[in-house]
């Protein structure tokens, strides 16, 4: 297992540029997932957010500034549940090392944890509730047990897939009860893309 990398400002920007590409190419899929157990707007919402974030980060000069600009973009452009959730996660992540010109692997892990805690606090959900937490939590577990960003992305993808077995207890899908089973949670799917973007942007040796 290779070592987890840190994050330079350039890598942070690459992360959000790559996130935007991935969201764009998966927008229809995200909307379809949301159509099945939600309201069919997750793809277009994430597109607005990822696009705005990719633009807003241009002049940022620290990883924290990148995350903060991305946070404001998600809060200001997305709406719905995912806007404030991603926005809060990115804002909290930015707060861990607000000044550093570059994040160490430890900084990055701490930032992701802070983001995850923000998600939990803002949404009041727990892992197993069939939400984006179910992609974040296995990804963080992978990092905590020494995995690299690649391993985190794989864990997030597995977590995303596993949401199909769950019934939802938060968000719009919770109205479905048993009927939500068999469907992947759209927010978990977009979160898996976030961890993929992170692995692809910063996954190399730091």
């Amino acid at each position: 297992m290779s070592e987890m990398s840190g994050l330079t400002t350039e890598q942070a920007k690459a992360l959000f540029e790559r996130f935007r590409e991935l969201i764009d190419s998966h927008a229809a899929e995200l909307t379809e997932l949301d159509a099945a157990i939600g309201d069919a707007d997750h793809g277009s919402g994430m597109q607005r957010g990822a696009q705005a974030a990719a633009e807003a980060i241009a002049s940022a000069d620290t990883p924290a500034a990148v995350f903060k600009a991305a946070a404001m973009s998600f809060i200001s452009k997305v709406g719905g549940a995912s806007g404030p959730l991603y926005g809060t996660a990115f804002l909290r992540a930015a707060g861990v090392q607000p000044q550093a010109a570059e994040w160490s692997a430890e900084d990055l892990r701490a930032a992701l944890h802070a983001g995850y805690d923000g998600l939990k606090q803002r949404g009041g959900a727990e892992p197993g509730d069939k939400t984006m937490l179910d992609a974040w939590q296995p990804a963080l577990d992978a990092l905590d047990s020494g995995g690299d960003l690649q391993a985190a992305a794989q864990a997030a993808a597995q977590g995303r897939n596993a949401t199909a077995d769950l019934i939802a207890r938060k968000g719009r899908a919770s109205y479905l009860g048993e009927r939500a089973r068999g469907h992947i949670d759209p927010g978990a799917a977009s979160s898996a893309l976030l961890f993929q973007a992170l692995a692809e942007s910063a996954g190399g040796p730091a």
Partner: protein
Amino acid sequence: MKKIINAPQNVVREACEGFALAHADLVTLHPEPLFIARREKPAGVALISGGGSGHEPLHSGFVGRGMLAAACPGEVFTSPVPDQMLAAAKEVGGEAGVLLIIKNYTGDVMNFELAAELAQAEGLRVESVTIDDDVAVQDSTWTAGRRGVAGTVLLEKIAGAAAEEGQSLEAVKAIAERVIANVRSMGLALSGATVPAAGKPNFTLPDGEYELGIGIHGEPGRERLPLRPADELVEALLEPILNDLPLAENESVILLTNGMGGTPQLELYIAHRRAVGLLEERGLRVARHLVGNFVTSLDMQGLSLSVLRADDEMLRLWDAPVHTAALRWGA
């Protein structure tokens, strides 16, 4: 999908522009961040609501004298962003304060809460209430809780009248909470709604079936059932409402028969007829009636019934003048 639109991503903005042109005597359009405000800033408490678009006339159609001070339209079926509510609060809010009217959806609650935090940080007096009138959903800690649906129009009218007559923020909030505590709704659908960006209906129902307990975004309801005559459908809607809202004989109610957008008015009145009959059989007094498309779900075929247990104060505020695009009397 066939729709009379230009690009899907411009639907909300262009519709708001058309709305502002048609109702220039009533409202002003603020384009960025997007909100629709009363032309004349209210003297008292400013009611601000908003939510995903696609439910028109909710909320923009209720901006005006005696009802909302501003409405913040999100993308179709997507809650608005905090910037919109913040900008609206700064524009229409004054000394008397701002009351945010939130429909209970995860996204709406989070975005409005963020807006409230930001507005308070800027020194504005902001309170909020959350309406969750949909009895189709079990209210438990295991779900996102009951949804806010058509009862919202009753809430906005009554709280708006209290604000208009100069009641304090506390008093307006109190009457709003009294309405929320006393209103229950339940809907059904014969067909789904087509979100422009999605391009196809959010669900399809086989011929001969309907969905009982549908939400206004096409969220699924309690169950799919074989279609029945209108009178029986009305009973299937009123039964859970009356189970949830214990009403004593001779109590007065306001009854709203609300179309989901694609239902002909004939059908709404057929349903309303039976709803009135059934309530009267239970010894209740249908003191006020509202029938029409007020809280819609794009082109969905279906309807909802809302029953508000109305005390004298609520009836008085209901009757107070209102002048908005979609609801108007006495003014």
